[in-house]
């Protein structure tokens, strides 16, 4: 799943340097490569064989994440930008960071909308 608006701005091929990923402009009103997501401290997580179960006690809602979404979730620690996450996951996912970037951004955007992550306070 690739956000069409993200495709418009992010290169399909290319730079392998994380600094170059970070230089791509952020989406207006959405999350861009330099966005630093942080898991909300009140959210609970439980291991599933092929992913995670996330429970938000404030909204009383639960969500199942597949392996890729779980890997993104793990790196939403307030230290990694979306570009960092794409870069780190590219090392074990057999894809380039540029290929992963739209998927990672879409996943983080969804987590943000669901109130499961927030923007790092210092960002």
């Amino acid at each position, binding site marked *: *799943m690739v956000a069409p608006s993200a495709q418009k701005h992010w290169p399909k091929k290319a730079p392998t340097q994380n600094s170059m990923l970070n230089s791509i402009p952020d989406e207006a009103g959405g999350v861009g490569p330099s966005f630093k997501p942080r898991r909300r*401290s*009140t959210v*609970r*997580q*439980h*291991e599933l064989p*092929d992913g995670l*179960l996330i*429970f938000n*006690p*404030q909204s*009383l*809602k*639960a*969500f*199942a*994440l*597949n*392996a*890729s*979404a*779980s*890997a*993104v*979730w*793990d*790196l939403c*620690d307030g230290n990694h930008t979306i570009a960092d996450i794409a870069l*780190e*996951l590219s090392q*074990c*996912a*057999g*894809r380039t960071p540029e290929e*992963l970037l739209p*998927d*990672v951004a*879409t*996943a983080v955007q*969804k*987590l943000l909308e*669901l109130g499961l992550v927030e923007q790092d306070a210092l960002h």
Partner: protein
Amino acid sequence: MVSGRPEQSNESLSPEGKGISRRALLQKTGWAVPVIVALTIPQDAYASVSPCRNTLSQGYWKNHPNSWPVDGLTIGGVPYDIDQLIEILKTPPKGDATYILAHQLIAAKLNVAIGCPPPIVNGTNLIEKADELLREYPLGSRPSKNVKTAMTTLAEKLDDYNNGKPYN
């Protein structure tokens, strides 16, 4: 940590170790489009995903602001920070049912925020019902008899929930 704060599991808040194994799994399976699916959880299943041991009374929350698991709450559609919420909790109702209900609603929301199962009766979440009433009759509006009765009845149920008593 303030004495008396409810016990919470830290295991689920430190996913880094598991994250490494999950990334190893990703290496095996390869990348797929990230999927996040909303689930419907039966009320009795909340216990299995909840670190809650006991609900806590509005008196506890009023006197232990450092134990609050959130920076603020929305009550009746109005967002408040902790200081404002403590002020509300410290305000004597003096017969105003909106305050009687708000006191219990604040405590109930905090109990849910620490992972306790929400108070649901016949499919109705009492917290949502209280919010609806306070949206219609805002804090300090001193509603008249019928609404006052509805609010105090609901507040009693939330009080029972907050004190760990049956609230059906």
